[in-house]
């Protein structure tokens, strides 16, 4: 297990660098983290592109995600099957979107996915309520939750269908001063 062991070929690393916002070192580090999650599942050698998935339960236990109230949603929205099993590709993808370098538009797309709990392409009241309850650990009374959700929809809903489409969401989030700095995980 020396340093010289090849995890990726140069072509693979180049391809990953083209497709993500990471540098070589970070990709290797990501692989290390991915391997750490499930040492018995994930091989060290990735030159053959093995097909292996790490289940959601292991991923949400990463220290980076552990405290996040939306951890399950994050992982689910990046997994191809929607159940939260991540292959290494999807794993890299996830942290690439959450990295510092990712542009606001890309982040907004995935943020929308994350907050869309019932995956119906709209942030409806139900989604907002869930979001709010996770943010506050359900410390607000139902009336307060109701009020806040109504207000939020009222503010951001441009087309008046009393739910937030992606266009509404993007319009709102594109002006948020804190979005870029908070929707960000350093790996």
């Amino acid at each position, binding site marked *: 297990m020396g340093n010289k062991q090849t995890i990726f070929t140069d072509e693979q690393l180049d391809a990953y660098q083209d497709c993500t916002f990471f540098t070589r070192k970070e990709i290797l580090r990501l692989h290390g983290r991915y391997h750490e999650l499930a040492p018995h599942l994930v091989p060290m050698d990735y030159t053959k592109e093995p097909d292996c998935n790490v289940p959601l339960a292991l991923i949400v236990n990463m220290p980076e995600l552990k405290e996040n109230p939306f951890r399950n949603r994050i992982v689910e929205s990046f997994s191809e099957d929607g159940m939260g099993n991540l292959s290494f590709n999807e794993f890299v993808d996830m942290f690439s979107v959450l990295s510092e370098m990712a542009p606001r538009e890309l982040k907004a797309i995935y943020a929308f*996915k994350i907050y869309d709990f019932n995956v119906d392409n709209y942030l409806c009241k139900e989604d907002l309520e869930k979001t709010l309850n996770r943010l506050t650990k359900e410390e607000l009374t139902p009336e307060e939750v109701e009020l806040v959700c109504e207000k939020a929809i009222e503010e951001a809903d441009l087309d008046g269908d009393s739910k937030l489409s992606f266009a509404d969401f993007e319009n709102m989030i594109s002006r*948020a001063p804190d979005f870029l700095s908070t929707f960000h995980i350093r790996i």
Partner: protein
Amino acid sequence: MPRAGLITAENNSDIDLEFTGDEDEVSTFQEELERGRHRGRRRDGDREKKKRGNRRRKGASKETVEGEEESQNRLEKRERRRKRAKRHQEARGRERDEEEQAKIKSGKKAKTRKKVKNEKTRKVEEKEEEEGEAGERNAKGKMKHGGAKREEKKEDGGKHTVKEKAQEVKKKKHKTVVETSSEEEMSEEANEDNEEEEKELRPESLSPEELENLKEAVDERKKLIQSLRGKPWPMKKKLVTLRESQEFVEKYEGALGKGKGRRLYAYKVMMSKKWMKFQRDFENFKTVCIPWEMKIKEIESHFGSSVASYFIFLRWMYGINMILFGLTFGLVMVPEALMGRPYGSISRKTVPRAEEASAMDFAVLWDCGGYAQYSVLFYGYYNSQRAIGWLKFRMPLSYFLVGVGTVAYSYMVVIRTMARNSNESGGGDDNSFNFSWKMFTSWDYLIGNPETADNKFASITTSFKEAILEEQESHKDDNIHLTRFLRVLANFLVLCCLAGSGYLIYFVVRRSQKFALDGLDTHTWWERNEVNMVMSLLGMFCPMLFDVISALENYHPRVALQWQLGRIFALFLGNLYTFIIALMDEINLKREEEMIIKYNISMWEASFYNSSVSGNSTAPPVIIQPADVPRGPCWETMVGQEFVRLIISDTMTTYITLLIGDFLRAVLVRFLNYCWCWDLEAGFPSYSEFDVSGNVLSLIFNQGMIWMGAFYAPCLPALNVLRLHVSMYLQCWAVMCCNVPQERVFKASGSNNFYMAMLLVILFLSTLPAIYTIVTIPPSFDCGPFSGKKRMFDVIAETLESDFPAWFGKVFSSASNPGLVLPFILLMVLAIYYLQSTSKSYKEVNVELKKKLQAQNEENKKKNKRAALKAQTDLEEARNATSQTAQQQQETDGDEKHASRQRLHHGTTGHNPPPPDHERRPLATRAPVPRPYHHDNHGTPGYLPGFSQQSEPRLYRVPSLQRH
């Protein structure tokens, strides 16, 4: 039959490519999602795309070609194609083709079988045909998997996109023809198509037009590769697209350019590739070089982004100081130390006789006296010799330019960072999205520590509660007079504090001058370091005082924080400027002293000369040790020393405060808690929180002092680098070991540029005195690189005169005459005015647009309400009209539809933005009864391939098929 094989392979990959191409155009997330979810609908879309593809490729074999006759036709066609292919296929490997052939033949058979089946069912219904096609596609898919090698597929696919591009116009024509014309026509057209395609397969015989298209396609691919990382696709797809595009580009880049141009082009391509590679390596190298990444990450996860922002700022400062240090060290200190005259050779480089005994004492060195004073660390050591060493290094010029360059570089960096920050922040100052922002951006994804997470949860909850309260009652009816009185009182107290601290500093500086005149040895340590200590202590305790005072004011915490920051800023600034004013006094004193000494020296020299002349001329000349030569006070070195002392004492106070205030407190709280009568950890002293704003401010002021003093003490940047390095580790450690996460977490990002603006102000204010002294005060006569000149900047004129040709000096002098400079300044002012006014007008337009948007929003809401009301009344009417429950049910359906149609209608006729309009459409299509809504779609042909749109042609085709 190599040709047939080739074409079918194309067929398959074409389908894939169609998708990718499509999604390139349409990167809107909405559609992606829709596509993912409505699998069933998607099939419709696929069918459509496929149809188009097939029509183009093989003649309308899909929806139209049926029956024995037709297949006969196709066989013939294939035969023809095969012949042609044999002629043209030299480039391709024959074996591979044959291999493929076999496989594809079977595929073809399967297809024809399907076709037969299709023919049977065709007349019954459109729907079934779709399914047949779907099946067919499946069969093809299988064939594809079993069939052609991957590489080849991609090549073909790539080619096909080129063809697509080339035939864009043609395609469109075809489509229109296909809609209206009969089957024979279509197949003929397709035949033509095929021939053309085949021509294009050979890159050798490309016409200029096609070449252009190819080039376009290649460029497009390249662009795709560049922008791939920003695409919201799953990784797998990105990787596949990347590989395909790269191969495509690789293959066709060589084909571009003709004759002579080709080699040049190839060379260019190669160089650009190498350049890219180099850039990437460099980028990788750069990230490896960024220090403390893991430390900051750890802090981030413990304390959230606001505390981490301080450390990131610290790191950024470190970077800047490294560069400043590199400049002064590489261009000033090292050349002087290596190539300048050595220590002890002339008087300015020697410790005077009187101080020699104590020159090596630690106390003296710590005070920047003794050997430290007469070294490269300070201005006075540098010699005014124009060129030194075998390199003929222009020392004074270099010294001057480095001084200017330091300031210029700092300005550049700060302003550039500010501009970038302002780009990044969404510029959302308005409060229109209060709740939604709170909901979607208040969680800090960086947090990875349970305690911080708990704090964050609590703070989010309170912020929501506050917002609700504010919403419910806009302002609390407190005793407003009392609050006002208290606020005025608080500001008065703060002003008193500021004035007091200013006076104290002035007083202390004057007193220290008196001490200095008496001679330092007679005084205690405190008296010698009074100025710095007083300044540091004031900087430490006044903010605490302000904190107490601000409790009077009863502001919202965020406003209170801003006030606090403003006050501390004023305090530091006041202190700094009092210090400078006092220093100016001292400079003037020194200069008076210098005048006297200068006179004395000339007298001394004259007497010395006289004595040597009047004495025996043969006697050996008396050699005077440089240590004995009388010298002036050298005010520049004094200024530098003051700043170095200030920095050192400031650093010391910071560290000591850190150790006592944070570490000792934490230790006491932790261990005394076992034997104390109340809970220390939760109760009064508790652990300290990390004070982001205070720390950032002190960092900024520290930097200001560096900028101010760097000209007179070249060692200052080095000192600062050292300080920042140590603080990084010390503060990281302190924050991790003895601070608790903040209870109220303030926004970090919005204040980023606020700090930067402060830095800029400080930069300006600190360069002001430095520039003033450089420009107005003549340098000392016997020390420093500019000695003997009237002004320091004369070094430029001197260089121009002696090192450049005469005409250059002339040009320079004529360029710097007021006749040219004044118009230039005027021009700049005009430019600034123009830019400012345009930005103002942009802002106005922005506000206007925002207003419009809001008005529209409200209008929409009203409309919706009206529509809903109408729907309700319709419903009522319907209920009244019918008595049977079953009928009623139906009517309800109808009404709902009606309502949605109403809404739709409003949506399209009103000023609604298009996307929501489209999004709603699938909802409408779900209604079972066909409605004449599709004319809406004609407004946006080809825009956003929403599913309703794709199903629309089918609606059309039903009648057209029946017509035939």
